[in-house]
């Protein structure tokens, strides 16, 4: 029934325009209300935020409907879908393109705005009104961006019979969910930005502000961690040689906000517990979202991959650059005017938790800056010095890694230092065991390894130091007494304490995995005949057969390979080479046998003239630890987030917060 289908698309388009108008109202009325002290004007913010979200959700639903039903009268569906595509990728195709992904962006933006309205009952009314207004101002900018430069609802006069299919690299479960998580993270940081700007307008930042902002930062950071982890895992199994991080501008675009979010997470603790570092925390909250916008700009304009891509489509790039300039410029000017009014209260000694967190922030912020300058340097060099050059992994590995090593070294010490005044000697004595354990492990590995690589033992030392340091942290908190009592008390520690230890240990596990993979990987490239066996690092590999297989929308050359340990078969793998005829693109699907200690990673190449096949074999030690560490970090964040203390709104309702709430 074409008429209903048409209606839905047009209604979706209309809902988007309505949401834009609601956003304008929400950006202005509550802000004026807060300034003048008019409660009824301020109270517009909450319902407006809900309506804005519902309208955007409807619009997003309409676009999803068009993809699911393969409505080829929409240009976007033609360019990015195909009737033969599996359903999962029809849905993920909605955000597998520029216009749709921007719609997802604003959907999440308005979702966070609505959540701030729903769970913000405990905020002082004027602060809440301002937060929602600022948040809505961001929505206004992005609604305008979509409607004027990237409208997903553009129709075609003559719909074709079928679509041009989605980029096959994106037709993968890992990448289907990578963008939504990343956006939840990116856009989640917008709430921290809105809180910071609102607080600067109010001219007041206290411990309560720190407590309000932390859960939002934590949630955004968890999503970013999962999103980055998914992307890295996808690159590992999909791109065909098992790399996990490439320092690509697009990757860096997500990594910079992550680094700043980690810094913000820690400095907000100092604001909450000790009422210090206020103005720095404001700046971080502004910068975190600023880096999200820069990331969006880099990805959406294509300016870094090639200056020419930007010239091909200057409208969008310039629009996002303007958004960036207005919001960052505005926020930073406001910051410059008001930051000096934010007086620090907490007093602390040179050796203290506060100082350790200052050091944490310095290392993270400078590391993020290094990634930033490396990412934009090719652009600067071309614009100002007329040099066309590349900044690749060798630069980042050299310039960035020292910061992470320093951070990992001081982390366990800083984590157990008490607030205000601490004694370094005491902390070091408490960590003695962890240090000896880490050193012993590194020495054993150093003695065992065949190559004289420093990387492996150093990485192992840092990983073990972080994990055992996290255990010591929990152990110290359990107090004194018999071991049984302490263990019982340890289990009853607040979830925030567990979250902290788990997240720190997760970082250790990731470092462990990275070091293991980089230091002890084995690689073998050869031509093999069907049925022949060859040995790689103690594993026997046999190519049993190669078949042509037809998938739903691709053709595959699928090898059947067995892996042997001596005379025992331990795995049967199917590496593939696929061709997607509609999109005219080949992809490789590695055959991977995953294990705790190693992955066996097989790739099949081209047939040779003598009847053999080119085959690549990798033994990748500790590969899975990299992503396990990321999941554990996110889990730690989740534990922390579930701590009773952060359910601010819930707690306040029980005690019947007495603050005057505008009539609703």
């Amino acid at each position: 029934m074409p008429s209903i289908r048409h209606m839905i698309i047009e209604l979706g388009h209309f809902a988007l325009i309505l949401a834009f108008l609601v956003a304008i109202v929400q950006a202005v009325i509550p802000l004026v209300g807060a300034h003048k002290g008019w409660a009824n004007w301020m109270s517009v913010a909450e319902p407006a935020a809900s309506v804005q979200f519902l309208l955007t959700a409807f619009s997003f639903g309409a676009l999803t409907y068009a993809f699911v039903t393969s409505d080829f009268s929409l240009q976007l569906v033609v360019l990015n879908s195909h009737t033969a595509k599996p359903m999962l990728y029809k849905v993920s195709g909605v955000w597998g393109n520029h216009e749709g992904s921007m719609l997802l962006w604003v959907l999440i933006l308005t979702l966070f705005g609505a959540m701030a309205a729903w769970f913000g009952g405990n905020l002082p009314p004027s602060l809440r009104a301002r937060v929602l207004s600022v948040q809505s101002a961001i929505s206004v900018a992005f609604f305008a961006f979509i409607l004027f430069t990237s409208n997903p609802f553009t129709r075609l006069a003559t719909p074709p019979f079928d679509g041009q299919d989605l980029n096959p690299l994106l037709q993968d479960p890992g990448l289907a969910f990578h963008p939504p998580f990343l956006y939840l993270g990116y856009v989640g940081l917008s709430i921290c930005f809105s809180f910071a700007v609102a607080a600067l307008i109010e001219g007041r930042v206290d411990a309560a502000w720190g407590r309000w902002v932390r859960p939002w930062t934590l949630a955004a950071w968890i999503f970013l961690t999962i999103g980055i982890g998914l992307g890295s895992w996808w690159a590992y199994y999909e791109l065909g040689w098992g790399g996990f991080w490439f320092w690509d501008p697009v990757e860096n675009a997500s990594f910079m906000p992550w680094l700043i979010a980690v810094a913000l997470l820690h400095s907000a603790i100092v604001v909450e517990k000790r009422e210090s570092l206020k103005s720095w925390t404001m700046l971080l909250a502004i910068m975190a979202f600023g880096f999200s916008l820069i990331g969006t700009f880099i990805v959406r304009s294509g300016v870094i991959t090639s200056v020419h891509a930007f010239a091909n489509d200057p409208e969008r790039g310039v629009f996002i650059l303007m958004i960036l300039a207005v919001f960052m410029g505005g926020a930073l000017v406001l910051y410059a005017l008001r930051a000096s009014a934010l007086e620090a209260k907490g007093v602390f000694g040179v050796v203290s938790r506060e100082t350790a967190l200052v050091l944490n922030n310095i290392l993270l912020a400078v590391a993020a800056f290094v990634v930033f300058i490396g990412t934009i340097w090719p652009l600067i060099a071309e614009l100002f010095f007329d040099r066309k050059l590349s900044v690749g992994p060798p630069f980042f590995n050299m310039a960035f890694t020292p910061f992470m090593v320093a951070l990992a070294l001081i982390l366990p010490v800083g984590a157990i230092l008490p607030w205000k005044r601490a004694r370094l000697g005491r902390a070091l004595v408490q960590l003695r065991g962890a240090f000896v354990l880490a050193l012993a492990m590194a020495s054993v590995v150093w003695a065992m390894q065949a190559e004289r690589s420093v990387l492996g033992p150093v990485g192992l030392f840092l990983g073990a130091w972080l994990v055992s340091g996290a255990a010591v942290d929990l152990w110290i908190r359990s107090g004194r007494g018999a071991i049984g009592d302490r263990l019982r008390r340890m289990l009853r520690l607040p979830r925030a304490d567990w979250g902290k230890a788990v997240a720190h240990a997760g970082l250790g596990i990731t470092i462990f995995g990275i070091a293991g993979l980089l230091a002890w990987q084995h690689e073998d490239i050869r031509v093999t005949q069907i049925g022949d066996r060859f040995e790689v690092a103690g594993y026997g590999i046999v190519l049993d057969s190669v078949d042509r297989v037809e998938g739903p929308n691709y053709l595959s050359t699928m090898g059947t390979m067995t892996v042997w340990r001596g005379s025992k078969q331990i795995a049967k793998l199917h590496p593939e080479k696929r061709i997607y005829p509609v999109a005219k693109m080949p992809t490789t699907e590695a055959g991977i046998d995953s294990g705790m200690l190693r992955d066996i990673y097989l790739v099949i190449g081209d047939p040779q003239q003598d009847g053999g096949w080119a085959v690549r074999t990798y033994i990748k030690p500790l590969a899975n630890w990299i992503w396990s560490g990321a999941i554990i970090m996110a889990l730690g964040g989740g534990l922390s987030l579930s701590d009773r203390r952060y359910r601010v709104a819930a707690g306040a309702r029980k005690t019947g917060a007495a603050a005057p709430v505008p009539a609703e």
Partner: protein
Amino acid sequence: MLRNIILSLGLLLAIPAFAVEPDEVLGDPALESRARELSKGLRCLVCRNENIDESNAELARDLRVLVRERLVAGDSDPQVIDFIVNRYGEYVLLRPTTGGANLMLWIAGPVLLLVALGVGAGYVRSRRRAGETPQDQLSEDEQARLKEIMGE
């Protein structure tokens, strides 16, 4: 019929799905491992941020073969790099040189770290000294409200 078209299309599209091919590998393992290391620092000119060691593109293959030819001819590592840069420009280097304006790129991180450490040290010292002078406190109303929010 349609199936045949798709199949022949597939054959046409049989782009080598491989980075280093077995026939490129040098007999001498020492030379080969030097070639691999050098390849990791050279950019595939037609790809998006890929080095020639990982790239499947034809041009990357040509460069890999060229690197190996130079090594077999007895060039040292820097000589090979110079040779490639002379032909393709510094765009091919994934590790930018330290010459000229690039110096800024390399020292930006360390310099900012030093500045940040200086500012941080100043802040920490001022916080310690602040302990010696009394600070103005929140009003009683504000204190009460704060307590409530903190759930204490």
